[in-house]
């Protein structure tokens, strides 16, 4: 037992996952611009590097060197706090999502010291196997709305405030459907730990047992990420840019990273809950996980390129009168089937 070395291994593992996540976010932005360009018969970014592959780097440099402006009359502390919350809540769920089965051997010898890597599941493809993993993700995700609300309020701008109000109403409405749509999965798997949920899908993906739950979860996730059919918070023709109106420079960059981080996390979580996570034949687990996640991310972008936007009353109607009853029906059906069809 060598504590400093174990902590060192843990830190390295977290750093690797974090860097991969940040790179993914940067390239998801590029992927979105490319795919949207394809859908709209344009080229998309193609100037920086081959096929525009260095565009994220150029974007980041541009954002860092832009003027960092705080509007007069804004609450300075809260104005800075908001992007921090948005970024943090986008990164935190990553800790419990399993991306592979085993990535390291059980014991490792570093500098002649034998390390037992089964401690704190260091050898597993997950940072922390928490027994309330799914609840943890919901808890962290429910904090994301504070970033937008605080940012919109502290900007001292009518459009920002209206955007923040819309967002909080939307989040509250769709969080219910999101939470209830995964209950079916929990009933079948019998656990809240994401690692165990993936292991329970060894023989069959949960999308087969929970087709309705999958559709409901994905729809509610679109709304929670405020992506296109539900992107009323940044409806340009009404609200300029919603709660982000007054943000500039890297603060705006952090808000954007948070937004795309939510898309990546939502895709990864859908993969974990319904599509069998890292399980799959022939290819290594990490590849399967990334493949499924990126197919879902592509689906997010595809919908953005092809769907019009809801009106706000339609959004509320859909959330409360369609999604919520359907997710309750899903729980009931799952319960009945589990009761009368013992496996």
């Amino acid at each position, binding site marked *: 037992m060598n504590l400093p070395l174990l902590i060192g291994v843990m830190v390295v593992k977290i750093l690797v996952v974090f860097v991969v996540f940040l790179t993914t976010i940067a390239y998801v932005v590029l992927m979105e611009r490319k795919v949207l360009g394809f859908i709209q018969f344009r080229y998309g970014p193609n100037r920086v590097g081959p096929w525009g592959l260095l565009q994220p780097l150029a974007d980041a440099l541009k954002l860092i060197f832009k003027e960092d402006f705080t509007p007069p009359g804004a609450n300075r502390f809260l104005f800075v706090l908001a992007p921090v919350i948005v970024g943090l809540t986008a990164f935190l769920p990553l800790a419990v999502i399993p991306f592979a089965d085993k990535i390291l051997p059980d014991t490792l010898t570093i500098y002649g010291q034998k390390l037992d890597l089964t401690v704190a599941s260091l050898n597993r493809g997950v940072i922390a196997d928490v*027994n309330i993993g799914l609840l943890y993700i919901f808890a962290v995700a*429910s904090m994301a709305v*504070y970033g937008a609300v605080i940012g919109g309020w502290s900007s001292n701008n009518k459009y920002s405030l209206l955007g923040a109000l819309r967002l909080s109403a939307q989040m509250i409405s769709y969080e219910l459907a999101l939470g209830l749509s995964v209950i079916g999965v929990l009933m079948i798997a019998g656990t809240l730990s994401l690692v165990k949920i993936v292991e329970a899908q060894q023989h069959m993906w949960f999308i087969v047992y929970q087709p309705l739950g999958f559709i409901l979860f994905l729809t509610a996730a679109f709304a929670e990420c405020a992506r296109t059919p539900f992107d009323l918070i940044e409806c340009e023709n009404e609200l300029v840019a919603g709660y982000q109106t007054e943000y500039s420079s890297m603060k705006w960059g952090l808000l954007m990273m948070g937004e795309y981080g939510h898309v990546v996390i939502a895709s990864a979580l859908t993969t974990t809950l319904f599509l069998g996570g890292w399980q799959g034949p022939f290819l290594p687990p990490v590849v399967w996980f990334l493949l499924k996640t990126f197919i879902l991310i592509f689906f997010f972008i595809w919908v953005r390129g092809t769907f019009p936007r809801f009106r706000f009353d339609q959004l509320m109607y859909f959330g409360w009168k369609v999604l919520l009853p359907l997710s309750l029906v899903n729980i009931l059906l799952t319960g009945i089937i589990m009761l009368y069809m013992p496996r």
Partner: protein
Amino acid sequence: MQIIFFLLAATALISGIMVVIQVNPVRSALFLVLNFFALAAIYLLANAQFIAAIQIIVYAGAIMVLFLFVIMLLNLRQPEEGGAHRHLGQKIFGSSLATAVIALVIYKVFRMIVPPGKPLTPDFGSTEMVAKSLFTDYLLPFEMTSILLLVAVVGAVILARSKVE
């Protein structure tokens, strides 16, 4: 462990006091969120992960967002100058009442001989244990709470219903 507990307890107490003494309602609400987080962390220290997560999801994630929503919608301004002398009678009455209640509580607590409780099992706060006790020992209060909430929902719908028949 003890140091972490006292740090969290101090955070909870200070943020609780800040909730009361802040003039700006939005800041009050945000300090209340901080308070909830400190409480959730204390639950985690006590090995009650499920209760900690529910504390964050329900209180910080849902109820406080609605609070903030209402505060922003009403757009409460800071009270105008000279507010210190308004409602003087209420302030004196309220603070003396609060002091009396605190004195009573402290008196009772010090008088009471606390019976030694049963030692907790290590998994008392896990999802399974909470569910088991909710649906066996405490089933009746649990179901009655749900009826109470239903009554509140029906009442809210009737109050919010437009008068057009």
